């Protein structure tokens, strides 16, 4: 867990933060602080939170609390850490060549990658788009397999 970033555990907190972040990209990380990939991801987030502070806001959501399970189910989060981007209460999709465009699964490799993604989302959102292309080259995008159950 990073001490610089806010950790949310209650539904009202999440609602409030999504509602109250105006004209800034909201980055919500769903994960556990004990997981090592989560830790790596959190480290990158913590280092870059000041740099993107003028156009983005970062918060962590602890996936182990009960109130948050609603959101876990809604966003269909199965792998941790998963990062979801919002802009002015709209959910922003990111096409990074993977199967799931609604979220970013895994950790970023370098700080600059995260900053690039946030900037791409910001530019797209300011133009009015709801889905943006990922600016990172595919080598640095974490790959994962989605297991479809009962489909």
């Amino acid at each position, binding site marked *: 867990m990073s001490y610089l970033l806010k950790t949310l555990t209650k539904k009202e907190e999440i609602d409030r933060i999504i509602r109250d972040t105006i004209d800034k990209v909201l980055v919500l990380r769903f994960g556990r602080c004990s997981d090592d990939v989560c830790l790596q991801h959190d480290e990158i987030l913590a280092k870059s939170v*000041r*740099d993107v502070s*003028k*156009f983005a806001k970062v918060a962590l959501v602890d996936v182990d609390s009960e109130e948050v399970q609603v959101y876990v189910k809604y966003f269909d989060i199965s792998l941790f850490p998963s990062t979801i981007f919002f802009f002015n209460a709209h959910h922003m999709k990111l096409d990074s060549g993977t199967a799931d465009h609604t979220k970013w699964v895994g950790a970023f490799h370098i700080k600059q990658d995260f900053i690039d993604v946030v*900037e791409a989302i*910001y*530019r797209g959102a*300011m133009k009015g788009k709801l889905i943006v292309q990922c600016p990172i080259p595919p080598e640095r995008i974490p790959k994962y397999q989605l297991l479809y159950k009962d489909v």
Partner: protein
Amino acid sequence: MATLEDSFLADLDELSDNEAELDENDGDVGKEEEDVDMDMADLETLNYDDLDSVSKLQKSQRYADIMQKVEEALRKDLDGSEKGTVLEDDPEYKLIVDCNQLSVDIENEIVIVHNFIKDKYKLKFQELESLVNHPIDYARVVKKIGNETDLTLVDLADLLPSAIIMVISVTASTTKGSSLPEDVLQKVLEACDRALDLDSARKKVLEFVESKMGSIAPNLSTIVGSAVAAKLMGTAGGLSALAKMPACNVQVLGLKRKNLAGFSSATSQSRVGYLEQTEIFQSTPPGLRARASRLVAAKSTLAARVDATRGDPTGTSGKAFREEIRKKIEKWQEPPPARQPKPLPVPDSEPKKRRGGRRLRKMKERYAVTDMRKLANRMAFGTPEESSLGDGLGEGYGMLGQAGSNRLRVSSVPSKLKINAKVAKKLKERQYAGGATTSGLTSSLAFTPVQGIELCNPQQALGLGSGTQSTYFSESGTFSKLKKI
């Protein structure tokens, strides 16, 4: 500071039998400044064996008066001083001013006596004068050594640091001087005593002035210290005179003009006078000294003004000034605040700064549309334009090479550009056709009105011109094509 010439001046006075010795000493200060360019050739003619001919101050009346007053005042120091009278009329104030003057005179006198001792002692121990620079120390050492040849019998431990004592002993063993005759020795010892007396008198005078400075100018003394305050007052010519001076003048009071003698003046630009000796100044790091000197001068001038009008006899404003100075100097020495990394700017919020200026204009000139191209783009109305390959093929020339524009000419260098197939075919046919036979209807003459020949082309008069000629009766057209046999 008196020079060697001044001592010779004193001797000159003696030689000219001028017995008004008492008056001279009051005018001593004035005379010393006047006679800077005294002729050194008088050296041989002067005979200054006698100490009294060189050093007259101690025998003067003025000296005796002031010293007596000082001693009296020091004795009754325990009584409170009257502050009721205006400062200038206070007899103690006058005494202070006199004391200042006297201390300067005594200093000059000590230098004269020192020179005297040096000259006499040269016969015995020449190198001593370069080893021991300070006049009073020199006098003490000479007194201790006397006529002794073996320096191990002489104990100099309490006079000098041991390193210098060692050097002196070593040099003494190799010196080529000889023992002094008895009368010369006597004179030398007398001169040493005189020097030491003068020194103690000076110390007494300064001590007196310092003790009184606290009551005369408390605020000023709090900031710069009583000794420097006394010196400043003495040089300025009184407390009110000091108060009337602007701070920039106070800063350079007492500045010693160094004779550079060919050395560069770029390195030593101190511009600080007596204030250099203050505790505040000495304790500031060298980089901040210029700023500190200005600050101290400004505040001390303010304090002097307060003292001149007796606005604050307790000296609290002086303490406040001192505290202010200390705080400011400390602030200057603070390290700059650490730099925080700046957050990135919002994307696309700042419009691109388009830069202008001469450099950009010169760069744009390289890609700008040239005058030639502008003329070629322009076309005259009603007249078909000329082209590089003739007949409407190739590049059009527009107004280039026309009547009015006699500056720009069409060059006959063929264009290296690739021509497309249709144009190439037309060109080729024309080339062949033009080479063997010519159609009777083509005219190869073209006259410009500039040349002034009035041959009118019959086709032009009819309105056909070379353009219509080519299309109606073109040699490359199918109807009138001539085959080569």
